[in-house]
């Protein structure tokens, strides 16, 4: 058990002093102190964002890192070995028993309820949205004193919610919200607001590695101490909430909870000194939810080109390969259908699928296998399962395929590119930005288009080779791990410096773009403009 892992202290007590937690020599830590804010990822679980956090932390050994990690329950073991310059890990469990504490009494409780009513209205009434931020910070004060959870769970707070919902001018009143809905919504809100109790120390930079609840401690630290708040988004937290709450909850519950996540996104984008999406595609949501364009800067994921060297000669038999998790979001059915068309043209062709099936995903895999059999290509489609060395998966194909219906900035794609393979991928998330002209990009869920692109490449070895060389060059030029780390090192330094030397009149937006980036951005905007029909009136 790691001694640095401890839950948020009981309300009202000060967090332990850093030195008491782990006496290490920090003299060599010259960089900015960064407090990383995570939810459900680093350092308690594995997965894409955790890998990215680990890359960042291990890539900056001279920077002191602290982590405030929002976890499911208390006492989750660490999934990563933490280097010595990670000096503190604080877990904030969302679930489990409510934190100890007492609801306010008398006039204080009445004041709480008035504020809570304004808070609820800000989630439901477009005209009241301005109240969200101020009321959120009042709730945070209560949370730090241990009063928030008991106050939210009180009968009086429940009645406030039931009354607000039924105000005739709100859309929720038409949905006839029941008291059961009020209990459910209160429960969800109470758990979601628990991270407000985390109180980051002043100084340094607060870096949320996803939107949503991870931003809560960042907003609190920014509000209390003016600590600069940096927000990185690999996916779009808000979009995923909208998908996740689709059908499982009654309409008023959904309206309230999704209203909370939407307003939290708006507040986070408004307060962030900088928003760094993992691809340009995701900027759309950020700008839509109010992030000022000049404070958004895309920082791409990177790979180490030395760890993914050119894959060497192509296989003898024409082969399409695919690597990833066997999951419906990867839309393997489209890939298999596309391959059936390819196979009709090139009878000897094969499709090899590399990657494990997650728990509960066996049914999807069986469905895909059945589809291949139905299409008469059962022998040519092979599920290879998990491989020890993912590079073998890229080497196994003349062309590497990506058929997903949703992606951020996929590691598998830039890894395949680094290995010098030509790719055919679907136009989702940041894929187009990653591939550029070094592979073919087709619309998602369209087997014919995908087959056409695959055939084009399979029949033209010169073009494949040229694209593969171009792909590796593109990674080396734009998507190396070093570039990612250097970008964040610069951002940390700049935010910290700006914070230390901030003066009253120095509040204008900072120019984050290097001249090269500005040119690239202008070119991208122009490219986007060509295909869009804009109307303003």
């Amino acid at each position, binding site marked *: 058990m790691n001694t640095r892992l401890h839950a948020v202290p009981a309300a009202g007590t000060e967090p332990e002093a850093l030195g008491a937690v782990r006496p290490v020599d920090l003299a060599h830590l010259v960089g900015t102190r960064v407090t990383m804010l995570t939810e459900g990822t680093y350092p308690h679980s594995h997965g894409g964002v955790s890998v990215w956090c680990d890359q960042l932390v291990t890539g900056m050994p001279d920077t002191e890192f602290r982590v405030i990690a929002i976890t499911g329950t208390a006492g989750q073991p660490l999934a990563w070995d933490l280097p010595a310059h990670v000096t503190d890990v604080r877990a904030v469990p969302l679930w489990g028993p409510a934190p100890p504490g007492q609801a306010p009494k008398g006039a204080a409780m009445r004041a709480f309820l008035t504020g809570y009513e304004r808070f609820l209205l800000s989630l439901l009434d477009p005209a009241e949205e301005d109240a969200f931020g101020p009321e959120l910070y009042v709730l945070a004060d209560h949370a730090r004193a241990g009063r928030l959870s008991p106050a939210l769970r009180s009968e009086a707070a429940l009645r406030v919610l039931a009354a607000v919902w039924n105000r005739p001018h709100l859309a929720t009143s038409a949905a006839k919200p029941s008291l059961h809905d*009020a209990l459910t919504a209160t429960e969800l809100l109470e758990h979601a607001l628990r991270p407000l109790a985390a109180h980051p120390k002043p100084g340094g930079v607060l870096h949320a590695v996803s939107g949503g609840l991870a931003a809560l401690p960042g907003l609190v630290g920014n509000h209390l101490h003016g600590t600069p708040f940096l927000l990185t988004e690999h996916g779009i937290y808000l979009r995923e909430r909208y998908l996740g709450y*689709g059908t499982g909850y009654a309409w008023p519950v959904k309206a309230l909870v999704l209203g909370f996540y939407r307003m939290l996104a708006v507040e986070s984008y408004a307060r962030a000194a900088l928003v760094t999406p993992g691809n340009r595609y995701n900027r759309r949501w950020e700008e839509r939810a109010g992030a000022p364009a000049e404070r958004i800067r895309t920082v791409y994921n990177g790979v180490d080109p030395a760890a993914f060297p050119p894959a060497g000669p192509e296989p003898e038999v024409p082969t399409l390969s695919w690597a990833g998790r066997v999951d419906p979001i990867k839309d393997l059915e489209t890939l298999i259908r596309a391959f059936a068309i390819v196979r009709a043209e090139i009878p000897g062709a094969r499709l090899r699928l590399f990657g494990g099936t997650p728990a509960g995903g066996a049914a999807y895999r069986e469905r895909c296998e059945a589809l291949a059999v139905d299409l008469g290509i059962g022998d040519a489609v092979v599920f290879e399962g998990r491989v020890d060395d993912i590079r073998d998966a890229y080497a196994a194909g003349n062309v590497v395929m990506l058929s997903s219906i949703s992606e951020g900035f996929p590691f598998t794609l830039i890894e395949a590119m680094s290995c010098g393979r030509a790719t055919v991928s679907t136009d989702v998330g940041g894929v187009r930005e990653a591939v550029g002209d070094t592979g073919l990009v087709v619309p998602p869920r369209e087997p014919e288009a995908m087959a056409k692109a695959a055939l084009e490449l399979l029949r033209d070895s010169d073009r494949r080779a040229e694209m593969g060389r171009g792909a590796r060059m593109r990674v080396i030029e734009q998507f190396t791990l070093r570039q990612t780390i250097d970008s964040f090192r610069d951002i940390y330094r700049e935010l910290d410096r700006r914070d230390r030397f901030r003066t009253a009149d120095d509040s204008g937006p900072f120019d984050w773009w290097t001249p090269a980036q500005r040119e690239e951005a202008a070119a991208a905007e122009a490219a986007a403009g060509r295909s869009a*029909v804009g109307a303003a*009136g």
Partner: protein
Amino acid sequence: MSTLLNLSEDGPRPEDTVVLHLPPRRKDADRPDETLALRVPPPGELTKDAAGAARNPDETLALRVVEPGAAEPVPLPDDPLDELAERLADVCARAVHPFEIAAVLESDGLTDEQAAVRYGRTDSFAIAEELFARTERRHPAPPEPNDPWQADPLRTVLRGLLFALPGLAYLPTARFLQSAGAGSALALTALVGWGLNQALAHRAYAWRSVGARSAVGRSLLRGGLTATALGTAAAALAGADTAVLLFAAGQSLYLACATVLLITRRAKRLMGALAPTAAGAAATLAVDLPDWLRIAGPALSLALAAVFAGIEIWLRLRAGDEAPAGGVPLADSLPHGLFGLAVGALVITASFGDPWRPAVPGGASAAVALTLSMGLAEWLLFRFRSRSVTALHTSTTADQFRNRTDRTLLLLIAGYLTVLAALGTGACLLWTGKLPDPVQLGGLLLLGALLWTALLLQVFGAVWPPALICTAAALAESTAGALHPASATAARLIATGLAVGATICVARARTGRITAHR
């Protein structure tokens, strides 16, 4: 109104579509028709001064909006969005914000390029906003969750039998328990046993709720042994002879084992263990058994129950997991023990009389009826919870909800008392061949109402109120009986009646709270 349309910078292409949404025209418009002018600016004009506009009159195209019916209707091209709106009708109707539709569109693979080419809109957000605006909201109920408070009515009958069957042990063994003071010694043992086993059950459940398996085993072992020892000691203090003392020890051990088996969800095994007792009782009624055979049934049941309970305890002790720090404070179990003790006193007084006055003839039938009804009482507690959840789903205001829970409370108490009255009458008929006298039956029903409401309060986490109310009632009865034996019965009815009123008041306050039902 002047609107600027940004078409592609290299000029319009055949596939470009321009959609204009015009406000609905007023019926009583001054002019019968209106004209729209669409002007395509020459390249570069937008960056120059506005004067350039006048120089290219030929670039202007006039569109005339005509009165409906004034001319041949021109069929409008189908908006591709109509098909999308139809396909996503459900999503759009249940959406809480245009973002929800945009999220679904994007997860469906829609890119901004497709939004422009296929639908003539700038991006997925524009489409989502349009779909959100033109769809009427619907609020479908989410899938019905399973009722967590479903209870099998057959199981309730079995539970009642499970509580009542051990009483059969008295039938074959009654002839050994005739010494003076045997009754009060056994009553005292039962009292101690009920109190301690209530507390023990609370401790074991509390440990289980924090997932501490070994601690459950330890508390069951220690608590069970303590309850057995103290129960036996109580009989010894009351001056029991050897036979009564042996019976008291057996009864205490059985109570502890039954507690273990009920907590560890081994009701079926407990039922099996009781088979020899039931067989012995049946044989006693049929033939005159020799002494050793009379003892054999209950003794075998006790041995079986002890073995089964021992196995469960051993399985838990073997888990060897650490108990969480803090644990379960003894004080938390105190009200449970007190409640068991008080209820025991009330039942014994009501059934067998108290030391200051002779027992009511057939009074023991009241105890049998109460015990048999406990299974039903449990089932009705489940019904209460289930109906409260339904009330939460169907109420929109706190007042509606309170009215519904009040009604449920009265209905279920009435239902319970009806069945209890039938059981009490039946048991008394079997016992004495006569109908119970109204005072006796009234006392039984008051006690039943008190017990059920007290259990309801415990279910809702109110532990101290029922413990204190029942203790006060028990003390009041005994004191009044001791001071003025002649009015003991009246005192008993008044004390129980007041206690029923108090518990119902507390139960109304407690169950009327919405947050008590989460």
